[in-house]
């Protein structure tokens, strides 16, 4: 049987992490209290990606973003997966391990993290994820793959890759690019616009197009290559620029091959910034959406922070809970509405949390009030602290301690491991 292997490109932090992040600021006050504007379209996740790779961001309470792609691969019977990673891969590597949760362990099955490396002739980081593939061509070769799938680990969607593979082979295509109909505002400056002829053959590809007037089809970051074409294209292309430049260069070089589109109507989310992250999470706080999640068969690592083995959650005698995601290991005794909880969260009696996302093992002490806030793992919120407001999203970095009765205004961004 013909074999497919996949490269999953794990994300970085944010597009402009060095300039936008307050890491270099000397004044601790400035560091802790920088308000940021998430409306500027930059791919900024603030302190959430100071500690982890974007594809390792927790989502829907108990998953990480990359779980979606890995589960898709599992559900599509693709059994050889290489993960290109460079930016803060610790959480990701810990999470993926050898791929047990997604059944990547066993005869002929494999899941490997492919880190940057140096050798006798060069000492270079991956210049972009595609450069990462170029430096790890051996993975597809060793897997003896007939076709190579390239996926992005930062997208949230469910997809069966098998019909795509069948279509690709039926057409005897060299490359197949999955596209989805998108509105002008969804594509402009954000996605890759794909134009193709009546036979579905790609005629042009424009990354982040600025001046488009009508709706069109955009690439959703799923590429399938015939192995021989894959090794030629990646072997020859330089791929030394930014991620977008590299992709443009790749798409230029594939023109001489038989490159088709595969049109999908599946839901697909590319989480670009905190605002989108926040809205996709709240979008799923509805019974119908939960049922969808149920059906999708998304798996996650159960060993990561022992999430799979924690006891069932307890809701206390004085609590109020409406519209909540409640995973394992939580003890809830406060007032909660529209909240996504992660395993191990403790909310004490008398605390109030509205419209927020709370990561693993956060403790909210009695009397604290939290609104419109993302709280990263291991944060402790002191008694009576007041955090956030409707105006703008507030983010509290991992491991931070918020002192008793502190007031943290809306839109504040607090560094990991601070005491405020």
């Amino acid at each position, binding site marked *: 049987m013909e074999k497919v292997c996949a490269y999953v490109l794990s994300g970085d932090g944010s597009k402009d992490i060095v300039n936008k992040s307050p890491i270099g600021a000397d004044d601790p006050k400035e560091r802790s209290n920088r308000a940021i504007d998430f409306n500027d379209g930059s791919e900024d996740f603030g302190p959430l990606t100071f500690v982890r790779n974007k594809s390792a961001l927790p989502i829907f309470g*108990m998953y990480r973003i990359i779980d979606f792609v890995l589960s898709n691969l599992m559900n599509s019977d693709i059994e050889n997966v290489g993960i290109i990673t460079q930016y803060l891969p610790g959480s990701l590597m810990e999470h993926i391990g050898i791929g047990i949760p997604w059944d990547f362990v066993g005869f002929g099955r494999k899941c490997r993290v492919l880190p940057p490396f140096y050798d006798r002739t060069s000492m270079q980081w991956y210049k972009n994820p595609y450069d990462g593939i170029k430096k790890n061509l051996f993975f597809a070769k060793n897997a003896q793959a007939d076709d190579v799938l390239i996926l992005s680990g930062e997208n949230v969607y469910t997809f069966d890759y098998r019909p795509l593979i069948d279509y690709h082979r039926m057409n005897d295509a060299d490359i197949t690019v999955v596209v989805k109909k998108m509105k002008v505002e969804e594509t402009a400056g954000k996605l890759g616009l794909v134009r193709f002829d009546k036979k579905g053959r790609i005629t042009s590809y424009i990354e982040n197009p600025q001046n488009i007037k009508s709706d069109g089809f955009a690439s959703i970051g799923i590429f399938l290559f015939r192995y021989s074409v894959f090794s030629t294209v990646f072997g020859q292309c330089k791929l030394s620029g930014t991620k977008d430049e590299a992709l443009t260069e790749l798409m230029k070089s594939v023109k001489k091959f038989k490159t088709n589109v595969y049109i999908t109507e599946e839901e697909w989310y590319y989480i670009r910034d905190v605002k989108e992250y926040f809205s996709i999470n709240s979008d799923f*706080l509805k019974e119908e959406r939960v049922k969808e999640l149920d059906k999708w068969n998304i798996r996650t690592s159960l060993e990561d922070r022992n999430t799979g083995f924690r*006891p*069932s959650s307890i*809701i206390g005698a*004085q609590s109020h*809970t409406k519209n909540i995601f*409640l995973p*394992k290991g939580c003890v809830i005794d406060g007032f909660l509405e529209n909240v996504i909880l992660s395993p191990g969260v403790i909310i004490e009696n008398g605390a109030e949390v509205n419209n927020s996302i709370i990561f693993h093992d956060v403790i909210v002490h009695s009397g604290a009030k939290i609104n419109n806030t993302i709280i990263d793992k291991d944060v402790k919120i002191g008694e009576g602290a007041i955090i956030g407001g409707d105006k703008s999203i507030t983010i509290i970095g991992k491991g931070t301690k918020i002192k008793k009765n502190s007031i943290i205004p809306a839109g504040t961004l607090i560094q990991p491991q601070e005491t405020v």
Partner: protein
Amino acid sequence: MKRTLAMLLAGGQGSRLGILSSKRAKPAVPFAGSYRIIDFTLSNCMNSFVMNVGLLTQYKPVSLIEHIGTGQPWGFVGRQRKLTILPPYAAENEMDWYKGTADAIMQNLSFVRSFNPERILVLSGDHIYHIDYRKMVQFHKDNGADLTIAVMRIPKEDASRYGIVQVDRSNRVVGFEEKPTYPKGTLASLGIYIFNTKILIRRLSEDVNMSTSHDFGKDILTRMISLDKVFAYKFSGYWRDVGTLQAYWQTNMDILKPESGLDIFHWNLRTNPNDRDIGDRVPAFIGNSAKILNSVISVGCKIEGTVENSILSPGVSVKKGAIVKNSVVMHDVAIAEKSMLNFAIIDKDVIVEREAQIGLGKARANRMYPQLLDGNISVIGKSSVIPAGIRIGKASIIFPNVSYKNFKSENIETGSTIFYVNND
């Protein structure tokens, strides 16, 4: 703990758990939402660094074997770690079920010998407790004991339900009586024993030729007390035998009372996450019209109704207007709109239809099985359907797979029993 082999007796039926254990061994009965009873003992072994476990099965072992698998969730897989399931087997001369707990170990002596353990930790798979066996092993070594029995002080009125141990000042055991009518003390044996392997093998071999019931409590212990050095290790934490439906219900409810000492949040308990895929289920969803007070809610639950003082296992749905109170509800039970449950233990996959009510009227004894149910609690068997609008009184038993045809009336009196009869 490398030199300690655990032998876990998990063959019991648990007949006083009625229909909960009619299709599964007692250790496999679900508990605390996402666990099964045996998870407590297996997790104790894991947390005490016991590396090798022999698990003896006999009564309806399918659920149990499926649940335990290779023992991987509890870390019993590795070069020097192993969990072996030991079912009864047919040998050249004999073809016998395990005749008693001692016999079960006697029949697996070659297994025991293959590990060459210094000590054997004999455990039971049907108790809820948290212990570090390492401390008990240390006590055993310090006393140079041949056998150490874990004991606990219990209320005097309960003493005739347990094996009662008498000790001298140095904690040496001087007497043992199984379920005495007139107890001579309040130190109960907890079914946790540490034997020196050599002595155990000798005493078991002697017992084979005697006409006894081949039971640890009755035969082996009594003989060893007179012949060997037997010590009592005093345990003072939370320990319960969930042998009856009342105790099963009460022990579940203890999770909701921190003062009870049952602390599932700090015991590092593990279970098999592949069992009904509970590890892969989505977080519980608590909807807009939900009202939840003092309850355990597991993953995969979808709550739109009222839940109070109850324990919900994974995948339970409670629809709008439904009320669940004082109940233990197992996996994937569907509770429809405007139905009501009070003091109910509901086994897996039960469907409670619209406006059905369970637990009406006054407490009493079940007419047919007064020894099983005597009070408020009703039990609904696995995969039953409770038809819309039906009203069921307290202390009732609904057998597994019961459906529309088996209900002869809309009103089921208190203390009734409904059987499954296939009319087709």
